[in-house]
């Protein structure tokens, strides 16, 4: 399991549970255009904390919040290093 594959899995799973049509996940996809709302992101972030053991949203200080899906994956990859 890679960080990326785990993230893809959680995006897909949460969209499925919430009955949301998820946009195709590529690195240029803007997160707010993915179909997931804030609540969905909250659930994704909570589950990634459980599976990857990191929560870059709580710890990041001077970094920028991710805007695209690619940013999101790098955000977690950097935190997992």
């Amino acid at each position, binding site marked *: 399991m890679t960080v990326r594959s785990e993230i893809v899995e959680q995006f897909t799973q949460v969209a499925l*549970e*919430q009955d949301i049509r998820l946009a195709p996940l590529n690195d240029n996809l*803007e*997160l*707010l*255009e993915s179909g997931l709302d*804030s*609540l969905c*992101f*909250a*659930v994704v*972030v*909570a589950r990634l904390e459980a599976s990857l053991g990191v*929560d870059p*949203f*709580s*710890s*990041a*200080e*001077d970094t*920028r*919040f*991710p*805007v*695209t899906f690619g940013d999101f994956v790098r955000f977690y990859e950097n935190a997992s290093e």
Partner: protein
Amino acid sequence: MRMPQNSYTSSLCDTLTAKGDLSDSFVADAGARVAMLDLITGSAIYGRGDELRGLSVLIKTSDQFTAALMLCELDGIARRMVLYPPDMPIKYLPSVIDLAEVDAIVSDEAAFGREYPRVRHFVPCGREIVLQEYDRGLQYQTEWILLTSGTSGPPKLVVHTFSSLTGAIEYGRNPDGRTVWSTFYDIRRYGGLQIFLRAVLTGSSLVLSSPWESTAEFLARAGEHKVTHISGTPSHWRRALMSPTANLIDPGHIRLSGEIADHAILSHLRSFYPHARIAHAFASTEAGVAFEVTDNVAGFPAALISNTPNIEMRIENSSLWIRSARSASRYLGDESSNTLRNAEGFVDTGDLLELRDGRYYFVGRRDGVINVGGLKVHPEEVEAVINRHPRVEMSLVRKKKNPIVGALVVADVVLKTASQADHYDLRELQLDILRFCRDALSSYKVPAAVHIVPSLAISESGKLVRHYA
């Protein structure tokens, strides 16, 4: 920090009239823009204000813009204005109509509320201002009724006046005429209403979001209007910072309230908007605006408790109590035993505080209410739904801290003895309980996780042991 105490015995319309030069000020959403000046002279109810004089009027509109027009037109004319918020289920309408003794409904939805016999007047409203002369002078000190979510049933109706709502606003401060307010809140709730009133009382412009607009589109438009002051919850701001258009606004003043502002969001905002003055404020619909903190640190200095002008605060059993002229007077229907204020006039905010190194930090709610992105969840309501599931014996709903929406709801569930799940159907059962919740509850109340547990702690009095902080 300066928080003046003002007392307006005026109406919105009178206040705007007294402002004089309003030539550059406007209210805009994604579909329309109206000059502040036109709010005084025109009508968005086709001049039918006379018909509503002295009545209890419920305002139900499909967007904030129309609500703004209605507030300006009806304050001082109606005896009472009841603001129906956008996400309040319509099933609560009958109890709101009864409690607020609603005589008239003003709505942009054609047949809205027609089935209620006690409502005798239906006045359509629209997004267009028509020049219409009728007496707009102040005739009533209108009661402003705001709705907050009740424990599990109908909302509570909180009674404010123009004076209590505007007590924290510095009158006339728009020195260079360039102040443009905006908010992620909805002006039909307390937090957004404060921004609406600030714009009107200072003769500034106001940029509102539209229901059909995405966060990215709203931010881009706010940028075009050169918004100078903008407010929202920490959750609103986290969402904004994940938007590709967050860099299109360059506000001088950023305000957070409605949720606990943690260190992470404050430092993210500081690094993204280095020129902005960032304040996090404490306010509630019942207690009113209490104080703001501008040192960019979570929590607030302990000295604020005794040193905040015009606000008396005290801490009892770890909970923050507030007395001020900005507090609401009562709940409607609660006149015999005022549960909003105690005998001395203090409002129990129910927010629990913890003192660490000379600073107070908000740590949760005494009533266990979970704040999910600014929306209140009563654990008991969610538990009642889960407990209706045929295989569930009992459940405990609690909060889990979350960096995106502040907190999420999670549930610990004990199964009936006869229906213990084996390893294989555990996952299916969890999903089924979630489906059960989704059918009955708004999405922010649905648990993010369901944990099947062998037992739950019960106190000696036979109640579930809850840990609120």
